[in-house]
């Protein structure tokens, strides 16, 4: 990682802070994932006019814990004739990659604790003058998500079963195709911000709600494309063909059980969180409050909390959107999926780039 002016940096401090931050982040994230699952089940149940889990603890709040225990204690079955090294490696790849990408997400400015400036981002640090983060954070996230394919593909292939193979083939094709649309949809935002660093992108949107890319930057088309592609990337309904129960049992993780299965499961939800965070950062002003423009007097402590508050609100909204859509939409047919990706989203994204660049060029 390029560390500008490394002499200003005390390496040991950096490493210590980083470790602490990562640990915190992991804990929060995994808990969040667990409770997102619970929330999903509840909401879906409501939408289908059921109760959902409500036995374990009050309102079933301990359900995730129970699930976790069950996953851990279950027997770990490894079928014969699987290609073992990859069969074991695949879920780890999936989970690790999805966890790594979260480490590039900035949640807010920085906290000053005991004379140390601590940026709310796992990989950023205070270089004396300001917050130094990765210049190409966005690209790295894209890279990581693009590598995420391997987890899916290899799992399907290594478990040596036709359902899994079909599922992973579908996943591979789907991910490659929608990655293009995803990447292109972001370029409009990049043009507006003139940078690849997530922080700078967010700062470019500071000010009132009207400066957010979604509204001020007229990037709602891009946002639409991004969400579609992201859903496909995360194999969520309506693009969940790789794990279409009705067709392929459970798709690429048919042969998995216990903790390995849990890894895939967590990876999927982590990715959902990442997508939500990205959407927030790129289109909805990150941690900036929509009320920034009209300065309402607020207590100082609030200034400390507000970025996190707004950020999580927004991410929560996107998680909810996921669940909402899952409860609403049917699944695509495979050819429809491809046609939609290649013939609709891709041209639309390109058109969006052209228009945006024209606008920017005219404005400057």
């Amino acid at each position, binding site marked *: 990682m390029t560390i500008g002016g490394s002499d200003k940096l005390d*390496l040991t401090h950096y490493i210590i802070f980083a470790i602490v931050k990562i640990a915190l982040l992991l804990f929060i994230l995994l808990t969040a994932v667990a409770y997102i699952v619970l929330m999903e089940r509840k909401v879906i149940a409501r939408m289908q006019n059921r109760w959902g889990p409500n036995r374990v603890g009050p309102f079933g709040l301990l359900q995730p814990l129970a699930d976790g225990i069950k996953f851990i204690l279950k027997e770990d079955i490894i079928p014969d004739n699987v290609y073992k090294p990859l069969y074991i490696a695949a879920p780890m790849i999936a989970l690790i990659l999805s966890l790594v990408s979260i480490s590039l997400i900035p949640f807010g400015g920085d906290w000053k604790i005991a004379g140390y400036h601590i940026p709310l981002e796992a990989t950023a640090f205070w270089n004396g003058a300001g917050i130094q983060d990765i210049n190409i954070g966005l690209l790295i996230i*894209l890279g990581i998500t*693009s590598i995420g394919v391997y987890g899916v593909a290899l799992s399907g*292939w290594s478990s040596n079963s036709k359902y899994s193979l079909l599922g*992973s083939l579908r996943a*591979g094709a789907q991910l490659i195709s929608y990655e293009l649309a995803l990447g292109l949809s972001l370029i409009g935002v990049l043009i507006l911000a003139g940078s690849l660093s997530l922080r700078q992108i967010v700062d470019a949107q500071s000010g009132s709600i009207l400066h957010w890319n979604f509204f001020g930057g007229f990037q709602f088309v891009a946002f639409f494309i991004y969400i579609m592609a992201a859903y496909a990337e995360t194999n969520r309904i309506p693009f969940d063909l790789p794990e279409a129960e009705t067709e392929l049992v459970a798709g690429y993780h048919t042969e998995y059980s216990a903790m390995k299965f849990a890894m895939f499961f967590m990876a999927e939800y982590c990715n959902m969180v990442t997508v939500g965070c990205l959407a927030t950062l790129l289109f909805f002003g990150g941690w900036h409050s929509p009320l920034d423009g009209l300065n309402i007097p607020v207590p100082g402590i609030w200034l400390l909390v507000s970025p996190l508050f707004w950020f999580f609100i927004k991410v929560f909204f996107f998680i909810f959107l996921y669940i909402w859509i899952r409860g609403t939409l049917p699944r695509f047919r495979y050819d429809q999926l491809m046609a939609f990706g290649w013939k609709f989203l891709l041209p639309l994204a390109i058109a969006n780039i052209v228009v945006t660049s024209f606008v920017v060029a005219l404005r400057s």
Partner: protein
Amino acid sequence: MLHTILFLIFAGICVAGALNFLLQHHPVNSALSLIVVMGALAALFLLLGAEFPAAVQVIVYAGAVMVLFVFVIMLLNAGVEEQTRGSRVASILGIPGLIVFFALMYWTLSAPRSQMASVHIGDYYVPTQALGIALFREFLLPFEVTSVLILIAIMGAVVLARRERH
């Protein structure tokens, strides 16, 4: 210091992955070790201050090209390769030639007479803007030509892979 450590780490990963690529008999393993090599190379790019190439390395190579390879391997269900005896020329001529080639390279590169600069981390750092400017100013024509090349490649791939109906 830091640079040396990082370099050694990633170079080690590179060589190890490449050797693994060479020694593995199963295409999938080779492919995976190649991906590892590419990731390590991306890290080396970062050390050399080429961050955009690093990212593109990961996205394009690891994320697209290699996925394509793995995809094809899965599609054709390529198993462990059988050790057939093809022409002996490869081993008789090729290996010695290769060794000579590498020896020459090593000799020239490591010779003190090749005045190679030595680099810090970040003493030459190319911001993405600079790269973009270079690409769209002085290298505009090659850029356009490559776009044409890609178009042709796409069409060629489609034509070749289409299963002709009888």
